[in-house]
């Protein structure tokens, strides 16, 4: 029973990590209709941003958020304006462009660090709580709380604010939104900026858990795609719930079957869900085509 509780806790905490990484990815997916392969690299940049804030200013990663989030928002908005906006009528080329960004960012960081695995100390990094025999790392608990707050905050923002409604309108039908007076181009760069800033949030909070390497972003991106497809393309709730499905699947498969098999099990579940419900658990029917649909 203690084993079950322990592995359940591991799965939920891992789910929080995946949800945190995937919320921004799914926002971009849903609104701009771009399969953003570079999202993992934005998480990686967030991690290195936390490291730089620690190395230069002595800031804890939780405080470094105040610097890293605005920086990544500006970076994301600029990349959307300078790269993706110019390819808006070429959805396939947008995918290649995000892949090019992935390689560009990864290799630029590599050139700067020569592959050294840096670590970011944090006040909470070494702490863990014991609840009824279940060990819970404080860093992962923080990531879970942040994922919950980010998903809830983003959901409220999209539903309760004028800007959020405009983003949803563009997500549903960009041509109609434009006819209604929405500045669609502005919504695109704002959304990409928000999605990138959310990746920065993930990066800052996950930095104390991992040894930083330029390739760490690609370790996040494949499970993150599984999260958004399982949860539903374009759905904030889907990304949140999908994170827990992926986290729990990995944790249980890794513990009860074999750690080396957990990704095989995860993607078997992934394929099964796709066959039964192509739009994911919380996605709209037809949304699975958004990445390749021609945009106005």
């Amino acid at each position: 029973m203690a084993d079950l509780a322990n592995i359940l806790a591991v799965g939920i905490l891992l789910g929080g990590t995946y949800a945190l990484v995937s919320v921004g990815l799914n926002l971009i997916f849903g609104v701009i209709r771009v399969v953003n392969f570079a999202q993992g690299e934005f998480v990686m940049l967030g991690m290195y941003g936390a490291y730089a804030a620690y190395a230069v200013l002595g800031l804890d990663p939780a405080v470094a958020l105040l610097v890293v989030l605005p920086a990544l928002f500006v970076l994301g908005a600029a990349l959307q304006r300078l790269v993706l906006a110019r390819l808006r009528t070429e959805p396939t080329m947008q995918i290649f462009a995000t892949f090019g960004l992935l390689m560009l960012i990864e290799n630029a960081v590599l050139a700067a660090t020569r592959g050294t695995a840096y670590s970011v100390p944090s006040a909470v990094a070494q702490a863990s709580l014991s609840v009824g025999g279940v060990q819970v790392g404080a860093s992962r608990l923080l990531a879970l709380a942040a994922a919950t707050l980010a998903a809830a905050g983003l959901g409220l923002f999209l539903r309760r604010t004028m800007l959020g409604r405009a983003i949803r309108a563009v997500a549903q039908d960009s041509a109609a939104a434009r006819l209604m007076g929405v500045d669609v181009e502005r919504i695109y760069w704002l959304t990409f900026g928000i999605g990138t800033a959310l990746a920065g949030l993930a990066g800052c909070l996950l930095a104390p858990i991992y040894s930083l390497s330029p390739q760490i972003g690609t370790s996040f991106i494949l499970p993150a795609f599984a999260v958004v497809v399982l949860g539903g393309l374009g759905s904030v709730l889907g990304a949140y719930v999908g994170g827990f499905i992926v986290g729990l699947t990995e944790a249980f498969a890794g513990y009860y079957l074999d750690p080396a098999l957990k990704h095989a099990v995860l993607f078997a579940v992934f394929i099964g869900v796709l066959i039964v419900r192509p739009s994911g658990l919380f996605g709209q029917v037809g949304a699975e085509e958004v990445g390749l649909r021609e945009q106005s």
Partner: protein
Amino acid sequence: MSTLWTRLRVLTAAVLTGGAALVTGAALAQDLKIGVVNPFSGGMALYGDEMTRGYEIAVAQANAGGGVLGRKIALVRGSATNPQEAIAAVEQLVGRDKVDLLSGTYVTAISNAASEAALNNGKLYWETNALARDLTDRGLPNFARSGPDSRSFAQRSVEGVLQLAIPKLGKAPKETKVWIEHEDSAFGTSIAKEQERLLKAAGVGTTLSAHNARAIDLSDSILRAKNANPDIWLSTGYVTDHNLLLRTAREQGFRPRAMILTGTGDTFETRDAVGKDFLDGILLVSYPRGDIGEAYGPGAGAFLKAYREKYGRDPIAPQAMSAFVGLKILIETMAAAKSTEYEKVIAAAAKMDKPFGSYETGYGVKYDETMQNTRALPVIAQWQGGEVKAVYPKEALAPGVTMIDLGRK
């Protein structure tokens, strides 16, 4: 998706870099050129660079003595982060840069492809660092390895279990449980399977468990081990997965009496990630370091001094000294062969017979029929107060160094 992913990566990498090989040498036409195949980009560039620093010191010392075969030696770099790039790097080094022979490698898979490409081009491939036993078992006629292999790492780690850890437990080997954790590529798997075989032969109880080195979470691996309650946790992995395993062990309160890391875990990267307090007492099976006892590795101190003078700091990792010694052995072998042709160099290497303790790493030279140097062994070191100290064999201990407690109760 993974196939598409791989294709996209290869395609984009090729476009962005304009090819795999990077030539950084300024070799003259009359120089004896050694093509160095290593990852000089990518996540393992730190170690590809570090190994090559060892080569550079060996070449500088050889050139100061007049070079070899009447020619100065020059190194020409060929960057490879995977087998496909390794083949391209060898083609460029041989075709464009006209190297006389090739050497490397930090990664087994790169060595595997590069050495076959070297054979196709009629060149020697002199391996100094890559570990997998399969490399020599292939029987390639142009291939020899001067450094230790995966089997010697496994043997040394089992010596650590039997000679260092079990005596501290107060148990008989047959009462001892060892959890063998390993990353699931050829590197980790080959070492772990040999560890399992040797430990079973000694009557020690074992459990084998594999993990993916790029996994985001390794709590499952640690919880399985914790549930099994082993006396000794013996792990083979890369830097980032070892760091994550150790952090998770700390988080989950997993404290077996002894922890032994094979291959990595002996650099500042792990100390910074996990903290020196948790690391204290952990044993490490690794290449000999520059601070080993002079009785074991004569000249190790001089190597350390030369490294510090050339690069202005201490070595990042012990791979550099093993690479340095490997290239020294190569230069001596070429001199004995009076040639760079692989048939003659391999024949000369097969005749070499030098006892243990002939080089800075404590290595000697005696090749077996597969051209594996049987007198190249790793040492066992230990984390002590944030520093790594060689503790086994006893001849390798520097003056004033003793083994401390294993650190876990």
